[in-house]
């Protein structure tokens, strides 16, 4: 990937000029404005709802509630109520299942009139007792009967208890909220019975299927445009009730309806990383060999949908250990359903595991990296398979050198810079490499440009840029001659963007389609008189020119070849899938975050003086966009480590910091010095390019790195995220 390895984002021009069109920005004639009004209780039934004032307010076109809604026919067909993937059925009845659950949709002719009218809706309720506190409800845990949620045991159950050195601790992470900068938004419209959505979705095809299901229409009749996403980080993995509501409104009025959630609603209605309580048990020999590891997690879900994630999974394979037990439980609470948030469960799990490893290393008087190396897993013991590739040790080495690990002392509080206590910490991350079947159409236009089409979308990592780089590489065209069309239905079907699988899935499909297209070009060329008697294997194709390998004078431009054959283009559409061979291997990306913190123990202030993020992600397709993604994942992890927490007032069952002033995410001033290091070695198995995925693992491991560094600086172990200054002050009595 040499020539194209550092290209600028192909959508950069659109993004820096304001020309990029996000969902609510499509110019739609006759569009009207919708807004959802939420419940003010966390559980109960709607006794009465007064919509009159809103209906009478100037400009109001419709107010939809459970009392007057035309229930979509798909509501009746829905089955098995608690399955994930079946979100809240909006306006289905009078029940209130969580605070700020939509109870009315107000539509008016202007934005301002809609907002005002929405403020006039008032409801009375039959209140019921709600449960929103996982720490109080954790004993009501629900046994999960799915393969994914089953208990896992290798060797002796809870074998850690019999070790020479035993360590046990409990860790919690609070609810965190994705909060992409772009609000969840949609323009919905109907053409007869055919719905069109301009919406914030991470999966065009998934949204089509969900909408088809709810409204009982053929999938092919559902059009979805999601060409630019202003971030999503997982919240776009569900089709949410607001999208269905907008479609209901558009149907009722037979007009396009634009609906943009308020930032406050982004905290209550479109998922979150669930509050999770984790118990770790580690057992080791005095020399530092892990002999037992138990990882238990209890996480929250909603009362109406079972959400699960891979919180405990990493503990099964990342270290060499004979006796491993993992248990995972979920507890239904009166909230909206959680949804995978960047890094997802692995980020949650790695916080507990990598802190516990650090704590055990200290107990054993070992350097934390030394301890990890002593327990390096040569193969995946969970699946009993070899790794396809694993350059975790290179990540450790690369990070140690860059962060200045040699300046670290194992004894906490022993390094100072002026009045600041200095601490170094690290945390390991990993994420599976997945590849979904993906169709891509590659097409040479008459002008010689290459068009690549796929319905996959791009929430920010640079999918179009990746497709361009791979397409240009295979067809040996300059990147500026590649045009990508994506993010909408009607194109060859791409996967949902998530799980770090986009490059592996779509990149491979681009790779395969372009190879087939080049063959097709060469085949056509062999039939041209210029190349008479020359075998296809003796032809080359580069920069739009087909030439004989051994005779430069024999060449023809692709454009001429197309003209000669009276073709206005040449195309290949191909479905790409993972090779069977891949099943013999365990394929994972690995990351290690290193941080150097400066702590002012009097004020509890933690500065991230230096952050180094290292990763083995196989081949790096584009250094520039990959580095950006890694920087960004690290920043996400810094938010998780130091500041992000949705605070709930459990008396009311509602969040109290559901805004960007009170729910803190990192700002410019929080990020001092950041570096990224990629091993950049091709994985021989994963896919034709040898990539392994980056988006998730870029975040996994950062939060424990910070907690471990804070311990190293202060001697205080904070096991409950986020590590806010009050926790430092409370634990360090000055």
């Amino acid at each position, binding site marked *: 990937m040499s020539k194209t390895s550092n290209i600028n984002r192909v959508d950069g021009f659109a*993004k*820096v000029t304001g*020309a990029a069109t996000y969902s609510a920005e499509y110019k739609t004639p006759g569009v009207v404005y919708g807004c959802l009004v939420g419940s003010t209780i966390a559980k109960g039934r709607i006794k009465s709802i007064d919509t009159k004032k809103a209906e009478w307010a*100037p400009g109001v076109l419709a107010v939809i509630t459970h009392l007057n809604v035309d229930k979509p026919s798909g509501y009746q067909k829905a089955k098995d109520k608690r399955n994930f993937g079946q979100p809240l059925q909006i306006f289905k009845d009078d029940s209130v299942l969580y605070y700020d659950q939509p109870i009315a949709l107000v539509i008016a002719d202007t934005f301002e009139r809609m907002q005002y009218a929405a403020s006039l809706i008032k409801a009375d309720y039959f209140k019921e007792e709600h449960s929103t506190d996982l720490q109080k409800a954790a004993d009501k845990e629900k046994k999960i009967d799915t393969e994914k949620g089953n208990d896992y045991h290798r060797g002796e159950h809870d074998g850690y208890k019999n070790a020479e050195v035993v360590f046990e601790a409990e860790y919690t992470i609070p609810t965190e909220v994705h909060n992409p*900068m772009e609000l969840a938004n949609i323009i919905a419209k109907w053409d007869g019975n055919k719905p069109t959505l301009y919406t914030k979705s991470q999966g065009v095809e998934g949204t089509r299927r969900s909408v088809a299901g709810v409204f009982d229409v053929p999938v092919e009749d559902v059009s979805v445009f999601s060409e*630019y996403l202003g971030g999503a980080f997982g919240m776009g993995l569900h089709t949410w009730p607001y999208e269905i509501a907008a479609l209901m409104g558009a149907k009722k009025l037979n007009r396009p309806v634009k609906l*943009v959630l308020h*930032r406050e609603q982004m905290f209550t209605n479109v998922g979150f990383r669930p509050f999770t309580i984790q118990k770790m048990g580690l057992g080791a020999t005095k020399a530092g060999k892990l002999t037992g590891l138990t990882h238990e997690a209890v996480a929250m879900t909603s009362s109406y949908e079972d959400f699960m994630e891979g919180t405990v999974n990493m503990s099964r394979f990342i270290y060499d250990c004979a006796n491993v037990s993992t248990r995972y439980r979920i507890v239904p609470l009166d909230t909206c359903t959680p949804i995978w948030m960047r890094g997802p469960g692995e980020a949650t799990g790695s916080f507990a595991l990598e802190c516990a490893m650090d704590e055990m290393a200290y107990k054993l008087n070992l350097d934390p990296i030394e301890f990890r190396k002593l327990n390096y897993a040569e193969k995946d013991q969970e699946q009993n398979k070899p790794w396809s590739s694993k350059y975790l040790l290179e990540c450790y080495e690369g990070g140690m050198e860059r962060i200045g690990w040699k300046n670290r002392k194992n004894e906490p509080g022993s390094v100072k810079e002026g009045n600041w206590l200095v601490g170094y910490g690290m945390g390991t991350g990993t994420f599976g490499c997945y590849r979904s079947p993906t169709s891509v159409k590659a097409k040479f236009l008459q002008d010689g440009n290459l068009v690549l089409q796929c319905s996959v979308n791009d929430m920010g990592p640079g999918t179009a840029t990746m497709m361009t780089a791979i397409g240009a590489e295979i067809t040996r065209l300059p990147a500026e001659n590649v045009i990508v069309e994506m993010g909408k239905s009607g194109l060859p079907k791409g996967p949902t963007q998530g799980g770090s699988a986009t490059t592996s899935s779509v990149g491979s499909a681009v790779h395969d389609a372009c190879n087939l297209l080049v063959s097709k070009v060469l085949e056509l060329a062999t039939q041209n008189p210029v190349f008479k008697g020359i075998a296809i294997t003796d032809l080359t194709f580069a920069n739009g020119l087909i030439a004989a390998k051994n005779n430069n004078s024999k060449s023809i431009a692709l454009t001429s070849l197309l003209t000669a054959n009276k073709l206005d283009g040449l195309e290949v559409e191909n479905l790409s899938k993972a090779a069977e061979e891949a099943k013999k291997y365990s394929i994972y990306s690995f990351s290690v975050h290193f941080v150097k913190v400066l702590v002012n123990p009097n004020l509890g202030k933690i500065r991230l003086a230096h952050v180094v993020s290292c990763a083995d992600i196989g081949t790096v397709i584009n250094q520039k966009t990959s580095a950006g*993604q890694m920087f960004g994942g690290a920043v996400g992890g810094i938010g998780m480590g130091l500041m992000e927490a949705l605070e709930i007032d459990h008396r009311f069952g509602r969040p109290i910091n559901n805004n*960007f002033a009170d729910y803190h995410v990192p700002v410019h001033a929080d990020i001092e010095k950041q570096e990224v290091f990629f091993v950049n070695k091709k994985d021989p198995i994963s896919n034709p390019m040898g990539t392994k995925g980056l988006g998730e693992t870029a975040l996994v491991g950062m939060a424990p790195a910070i907690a471990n560094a804070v311990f190293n600086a202060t001697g205080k172990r904070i096991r409950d995220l986020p590590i806010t200054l009050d926790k430092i002050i409370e634990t360090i009595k000055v």
Partner: protein
Amino acid sequence: MASKKNNPKEVTENDSNSRRDFIKKSGLFTALAFTPPSLVMASENKWDEKIAEYLETVPLSIEVNGKKHNLNIEPRTTLLDLLREQLQLTGTKKGCDHGQCGACTVHVNGTRILSCLTLASMQQNAQVTTIEGLSNGKKLHPMQEAFIKHDGFQCGYCTPGQIMSGIACIKEGHANSREEIREYMSGNICRCGAYHNIVDAITEVKEGGKEL
């Protein structure tokens, strides 16, 4: 402007729930001394709303990216909503609508401000520059070029605000070190976490010394 508004608070529970009946009781139309038949006609033809629309707006002259607009707007319309929903200039983004994220940053009379907390009705004769006003066709502003070169964004949604803020940061004299840039750019949140690259871009433009 001097009219009494169509205030729903005047309605009591005993009133008819027909919206068209309501206008008969509305202070607005009483003030206009419509006779009852004309009221019914007004409501049937939705003139009530058209009249309300007229009476509840104020005139506004505003220049956006060098183009003069003479508009009638509701006093409550924010500059952000005016730009996005009425002038179709969607480059300026709504991230929070409460002055907590910086995505809506524009320049008004040469100063960076938050358009979500600015009532358009208070910007009579203001000169507004948005992200769309920076480039000239294919010719980008140096800050836009630097953002592309240094990959100062991922999803691109905070980008217009970051760029408008970055330009102002240099013009204000607050880009003399990476530390100072970070502090004076902290009003612009980037959830993708492109901060490192954004500071690179601003630093390069500052060091390039071009007139901005």
